[in-house]
């Protein structure tokens, strides 16, 4: 079953074209890793899927919803959860309140049930004991795990990770990728923009290399990482793997 489909997507910021005709199909349960240099358009692609950026051409379908249609685009948020590089937790709310806000206000679930679901979501990321802590009292890794719980609580069909570990100290990366691995094993459909090549190789079903706003190459990780056919991919991988 097709979860996400991008057809010839074009996206520009003023005169700068960032996506130059992207086609991508993601099946249910697939873990797709997106790699590419900074400015290549990989984050923009996730943001387009999640209706955070309007597109200038092409089509974006998520679970049958036309995200390119402004009238229906907001429906996508029922099915897609997103995790950001900067966590973007709400600083004035506790961890639990971050997780339950949308349960109460969007899904109209009563406070008691929302609390139960919120605690359950925090348990999935191993942070139930931090339910009453404010974001400022948590480490970066813990904040990002709360952010994952906030998305998971809404039971999304797809999770988007936009450089979820890039802002973390190196020793905190593992706790976040650990949660992401577990999600992948549970069969979550995932699109992951990352620079963690070890994670990409282990967890990814497919790796997509984006170069200058286009998909330059895609394939299973063991092939793409060891024997890339596109010279641009070879260059990029050489640079990141031999830093």
């Amino acid at each position, binding site marked *: 079953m097709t979860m996400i489909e991008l057809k010839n997507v074009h996206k520009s910021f003023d005169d700068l074209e960032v996506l130059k005709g992207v086609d991508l199909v993601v099946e249910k349960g697939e873990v797709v890793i997106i790699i590419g240099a900074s400015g290549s358009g990989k984050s923009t692609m996730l943001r387009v899927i*999640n*209706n*955070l950026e309007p597109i200038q051409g092409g089509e974006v379908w998520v679970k049958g919803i036309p995200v390119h249609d402004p009238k229906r685009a*907001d429906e996508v*948020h*029922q099915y*897609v*959860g*997103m995790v*950001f590089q*900067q966590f*973007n*937790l*709400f*600083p*004035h709310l506790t961890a639990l309140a971050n997780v339950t*806000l*949308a349960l109460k*206000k*969007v899904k109209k679930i009563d406070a008691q049930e929302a609390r139960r679901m919120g605690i359950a979501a925090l348990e999935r990321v191993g942070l139930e004991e931090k339910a009453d802590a404010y974001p400022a009292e948590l480490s970066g890794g813990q904040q990002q795990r709360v*952010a994952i719980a*906030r*998305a998971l609580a*809404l039971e999304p069909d797809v999770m988007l990770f936009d450089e979820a570990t890039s802002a973390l100290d190196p020793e905190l990366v593992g706790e976040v990728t650990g949660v992401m691995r577990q999600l992948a094993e549970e069969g979550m459909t995932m699109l992951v923009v990352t620079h963690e090549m070890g994670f990409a190789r282990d967890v990814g079903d497919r790796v997509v290399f984006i170069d200058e706003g286009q998909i330059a190459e895609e394939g299973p990780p063991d092939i793409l990482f060891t024997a890339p056919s596109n010279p641009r991919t070879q260059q990029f991988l050489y640079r990141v793997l031999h830093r």
Partner: protein
Amino acid sequence: MGWQGIFDSSGILFTGFVNTLTLSIATIVLGTALGLVVGTLRAARVPALRAPLRIYLEVFRGSPLLVQMLFIYFGAAYLGLRGVETFIAALVALTLYEGALISEIFRAGIEAVPRGQREAARSIGLSRFQIERYVILPQTVTIVLPPLVGQYIGLVKDTALATAIGYFELVREGQAIIDRIGMPIEVFIVIGAIYFVICYPMSLVARRLEKRALHA
């Protein structure tokens, strides 16, 4: 006679004090409500409202409050609107003027909240209104409170202009006392002291909030 004359007029002064306070509090409530709505809508960049809100802001920020007050008071009379007494005219003028200034405080406060907060809120499905209500405004409060209280201090003193259209606030009542017993220096010292008694505690509050905002 000396200061005794002023002491004997304390009833009149008290009336002026109460009237100044009433006008100030009413303006704080209405001006803040207006400023909040205008500031939020301007920060949200609603296309259809962009020009009208900008015109409102620039007109009321860019002309003297005294002129606005006189315009509204005499304008109402010219239009034959009966029952627009001095209090109402003063309140309307003050609300429009202070509301314009306060809207800029809210707009700046809202825009100080990082963009990622809005994106995260959209991603979990909150509506436009819910994003402002539950995510942006609570974070705006700590940012806007110190400048807001500072604006209120200015607002209390701005109510003195209502004397020009004949509203019996502190300055007007002081004039009435001077007309009766003279001694303008002493009377104005007392009037000034009363304004100070209202404003100084607010100034202390503003300073405290500022310290707290710095530590937050």
